[in-house]
C-alpha cells in the first residue's frame, strides 16, 4: 500500500468527466502518470484541470463527482 494521493489544486466543484455526457477521465484501476488529467475543478465559472503528480494505479476516489472540494483536499488514492 502506498499513501500517494491526488489533491485539488483549487477550491470549487470537482468533476470526473470533461463534460456531463462524456466518460470519466479515469476510473478505479486505471494507471496514471505525472501530468495525466484525472478531473476538473470549477472555480468562479472557469475550469481547471486536476493532474496527477505521481505514477500509480487509481485505487479509489475520496469524493464524488460534483462534490465541493477545498484547495489541497485529497481527491483520490493512488496505489501500486
Amino acid at each position, binding site marked *: 500500500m502506498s499513501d500517494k494521493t491526488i489533491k485539488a489544486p*483549487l*477550491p*470549487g*466543484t470537482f468533476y470526473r468527466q470533461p*463534460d456531463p455526457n462524456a466518460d470519466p477521465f479515469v476510473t478505479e484501476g486505471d494507471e496514471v502518470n505525472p501530468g495525466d488529467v484525472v478531473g476538473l475543478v*470549477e*472555480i*468562479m*465559472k*472557469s475550469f481547471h484541470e486536476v493532474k496527477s503528480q505521481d505514477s500509480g494505479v487509481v485505487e479509489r476516489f475520496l469524493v464524488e463527482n*460534483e462534490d*465541493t472540494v477545498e484547495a489541497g483536499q485529497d481527491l483520490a488514492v493512488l496505489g501500486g
Partner: protein
Amino acid sequence: MRRVLIANRGEIALRVIRACRELEIESVAVYSQADESALHVRKADHSINIGKAAARFSYLNPDVLLDAAQKTGADAVHPGYGFLSENAEFARRCQGAGLIWVGPPPEAIEQMGDKAAARKLAAQADVPIVPGTKGTIAPEQALAKAEDIGYPVMLKAAAGGGGKGIRIARNPDELQDCVAIAAREARAAFGDPALYLEKLLVSPRHVEIQVLADTHDNVIHLYERECSLQRRRQKLLEESPAPALDAGNRERMAAAAVRLARAAGYTNAGTVEFLLDGNGGFYFIEMNTRIQVEHPVTEMVTGVDLVKEQLRIAAGERLAIAQEEVPLHGAAIEFRITAEDPDSDFHPSPGQITCLEIPGGPGVRLDTALYAGYNVPPFYDSLIAKLIVWGLDRREAIARGRRALEEFAIEGIHTTIPFHLHILENPGFRQGEYHTEYLSDLALA
C-alpha cells in the same frame, strides 16, 4: 405586488432588495449552502435555503426556486442578471404559477435569445445589422456564404451569448477547419448546434442603448453606455456618455433601439447592443432581456432608478418619466472589481476578506455584497463589487475614479483594483480612443 422573491445572489440581489425597500415591497432572499452568511440574506425581509452550493442545484434550478416562491408566499420573481434571467421557460413557469415575472414577456426573451431570429426582427424594424447570413446555416453552406459576406468572418452559435461559442476565420481554409468544431461546441454548450455567419468588424467599439417599456405602449431609451473596454470579450469597465458617439449618432442609435423594442413587443428593462465601426456606422448585435451589470452607469447620468422602474412596470404601472424628460447629465464610469489576480493572468482568487475599506465622498457609488470577514465562495461569478463614479464631465469622472479606487482597500484576496488604476493612466483611454481589441492589442490583458 407585495413580496418579491429575488432569484439571485451577491450585489444584484442586494440592489433589488434596496429597490423593493424604497417601494415598500417585501423581499425574499434565496441562498445556497455556500451563501448562508451572505449579505443579501441578512438584508432581505425573508430568506430561504435552496440547496447545494453548485448553481445547477440552487440558483439555476427552476424547481427549487418556484418551490421557494410558493413556500415564502412571494407574488413576484425578480431574476437579476445571469442565472435564469434570460430563460424563457423559467419566466413562463413563474407566470404559470401565478407569479409576476419582473422582466419582459417570455416570447420576447425567446426571440431575442435566438440570435438569428433577433437579426431577422432587427432587419424588419429597419435596425442596421452586421452583414451576415439571414438565418442559421448548415455547415456545408458556410464556405459559399462567407465568399458573399467577405472575410474575416465570425461563426456564432445561434443560442450563444456573453461572448461564448464564437470562432473567427480569416480565409476559406480556416473556415473549413472550424465549422465542424463550432457546431460541436455549440451543441455541447447550448444543446443546439445551429450556427450563423457574420462579417467580423475589425477593432469595433461596443455601444449599447438602455430601454424601458411599460405595458401601456410607452417605450423610452435612457441613452447609451460604452462597454468597449473588454478582456476576452468580457466587459471590464463601462461609461456613459460613450466617447465614441456624436449627437447625431446617439439620436439614430437610440431611435433604432426603441424601434426594435417596439417590434419585439418588449416590456420592462432591456439593452440593445451595437457595434460601431470607425466610420460612424453602427450594427445591432443582440438584445439583453434583463437588467445589466452596468445599469448603474445609466442611473448616474439620468437619475432614473432602473430597478424600481422594473418593479413598477411589472406591477402594471406606467413609466414614471417621458422621453423628453430623461436627462443626460455629466459622465459616469463603472469599474467591475473581480476576485481575480491581474498579475497572474486574472487567476480566480476566492477566500476571506480580512480587511475592507470602502471609498466614499462626492459622486461615488459602491454596489457590493462584501463585508469584512466575508468569505468569497469559489462557486460563482468573480464579480465582487461595482464602483461607479460620476463627474460633471468625463475628465472629472476619471479623476474621481482614480481617487475612489485609491481609497478602496480589499485585503485577503486579489482583486482587479490595481488593474483599473492602471487603465486610468492609459493615454488612449484618457482620450476616449479605445475599442474592443484595445487591451489585447496593448497586451494588457
